[in-house]
C-alpha cells in the first residue's frame, strides 16, 4: 500500500513543471512518478512500500522503499535499475557512510556509486571509456536517483541542510562500474568479501577528484609514486569518530593498468607499496593522508584507452560501504 501523497495533473508538462516549481528536482525535468510505475519498481525489487532502508537520525529521517522507488522513477531509471538504487540507498544510510555530514558539508562532497558483478553487463553500466560522464542511461539515472534520495528524502537541499560552498557537477550523477573483464585483478567486491557472481554497489564519498596523470612511467613503482604524490597533495580526511576506517579510491585506467598486468602486481601488492608512502608525514605543499590501514586504499579498474592516468577520489568523512544488490 502506498504511503505517498497523491497529486493529480492534467498534462505531463504540468506535472514536470510542478515538480520543478516545488523544488523536488535537481533542476532538471523528472519523469512523473505515477503510482503504477512506483508499484512496478517496488515489485521488481521485491520490496514493500514501507520497508525501511535506513535512517538519518540527526535529520529525523527514515527512508523507506517507496521513497527510493519514487525518486528512482523521477530520475529516469528503468525498472531493472531499482535493486541497484535500493542497495546504494542502503549504503548511503549506513552509519559510517555518514550521510548527515557527506550531504551537508561545505566541501560539497558527491557520492560515487561503483557497481561490481554481473549486473553491470545486464544493465549496460559503463565501466570503460567515458564512464564518469554522460551517455549511458544506467550510469546517468542510477547516480541521479541516489542524489534525488539525498535531496528529497534526506533533506540535503541547497541552502537548507546542504551547505556546499560550490557543490559539484558530480552531484547530478556519479555512477560507474569496475571493468572486471579487462582487469588483471580481483574485483573490488570480492576483495570486500562478496562472491564474484554477487552484484554489489560500493558507495564512496568524494570530496575532491584529482588525476594522477603520468605518461612517462613504464613500470608499477613509477606509476604508484605518481599516484602517491597526487594523493598527498590533497590528502585524505579522517577524524576520531572514523578512527582507522578511512579510505581513498584509485580508479585506474587501461594505460596504467597494463604495467601492473605485465609485472603481475596484485591490488594487495599495490596497497603494500603505497600505504607507507601515503602515510609518511606530510611535507611542504602536502596535506595529511589519514589512512588507518592499507585496505582503506580501494583500487578499481575503470576507464578507457588513451590518457595515462589514474583518478583519485579523495573522500569526505566516511568509510566506503559495499552492499549486495538483492534481485527478487
Amino acid at each position: 500500500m502506498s504511503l505517498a501523497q497523491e497529486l493529480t495533473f492534467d498534462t505531463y508538462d504540468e506535472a514536470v513543471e510542478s515538480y520543478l516549481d516545488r523544488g523536488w528536482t535537481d533542476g532538471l525535468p523528472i519523469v512523473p512518478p505515477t503510482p503504477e510505475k512506483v508499484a512496478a519498481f517496488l515489485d521488481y525489487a521485491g520490496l514493500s512500500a514501507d520497508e525501511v532502508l535506513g535512517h538519518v537520525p540527526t535529520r529525523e529521517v527514515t527512508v523507506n522503499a517507496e521513497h527510493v522507488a519514487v525518486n528512482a522513477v523521477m530520475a529516469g531509471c528503468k525498472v531493472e535499475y531499482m535493486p541497484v538504487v535500493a542497495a546504494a540507498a542502503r549504503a548511503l544510510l549506513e552509519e559510517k557512510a555518514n550521510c548527515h555530514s557527506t550531504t551537508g558539508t561545505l566541501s560539497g562532497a558527491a557520492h560515487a556509486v561503483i557497481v561490481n558483478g554481473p549486473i553491470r553487463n545486464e544493465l549496460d553500466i559503463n565501466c570503460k571509456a567515458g564512464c564518469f560522464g554522460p551517455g549511458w542511461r544506467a550510469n546517468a539515472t542510477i547516480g541521479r536517483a541516489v542524489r534525488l534520495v539525498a535531496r528529497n528524502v534526506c533533506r540535503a537541499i541547497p541552502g537548507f541542510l546542504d551547505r556546499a560552498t560550490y557543490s559539484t557537477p558530480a552531484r547530478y550523477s556519479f555512477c560507474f562500474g569496475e571493468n572486471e573483464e579487462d582487469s588483471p585483478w580481483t574485483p573490488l567486491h570480492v576483495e570486500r568479501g562478496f562472491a564474484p557472481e554477487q552484484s554489489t554497489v560500493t558507495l564512496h564519498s568524494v570530496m575532491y577528484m584529482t588525476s594522477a596523470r603520468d605518461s612517462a612511467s613504464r613500470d608499477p613503482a613509477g606509476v604508484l609514486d605518481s599516484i602517491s604524490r597526487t594523493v598527498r597533495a590533497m590528502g585524505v580526511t579522517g577524524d576520531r569518530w572514523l578512527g582507522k576506517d578511512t579510505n581513498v579510491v584509485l580508479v585506474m585506467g587501461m594505460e596504467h593498468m597494463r604495467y601492473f598486468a605485465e609485472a603481475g602486481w596484485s591490488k594487495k601488492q599495490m596497497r603494500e607499496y603505497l600505504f607507507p608512502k601515503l602515510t609518511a608525514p606530510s611535507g611542504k605543499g602536502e596535506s595529511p593522508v589519514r589512512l588507518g590501514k592499507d585496505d582503506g586504499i580501494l583500487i578499481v579498474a575503470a576507464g578507457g584507452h588513451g590518457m595515462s592516468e589514474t583518478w583519485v577520489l579523495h573522500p569526505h568523512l566516511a568509510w566506503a560501504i559495499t552492499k549486495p544488490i538483492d534481485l527478487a
Partner: protein
Amino acid sequence: MRDAIEMEWSGVPSVAIIHEAMRGSANSMRRLSGVPDYDFITVDYPHIPTAVWSDDEVREVAKEVAPKVVAALVKNRG
C-alpha cells in the same frame, strides 16, 4: 547544532557556537529537531567559518563568546 540539542536531551547543559554564515542551517536544524527556540550563539567575520584560526585569534574569539555562552546556557535552562 544537532550535537548541542542531543547533548541537552541526554541531560548535559549545552550551547552551540555557530558561524554567522551557517545561521540558516542552524535554524533549519533546530526547527526540524522540534526545538525552534533553542538558543545558539554566533561567531562572525573577520573570523572565517572553517575555524582555521591562529592561537591569538582563538583567544580573541573565546573572549568574545564566553559571556554569550554563559548567557545562552542560563537561558536554555530557563
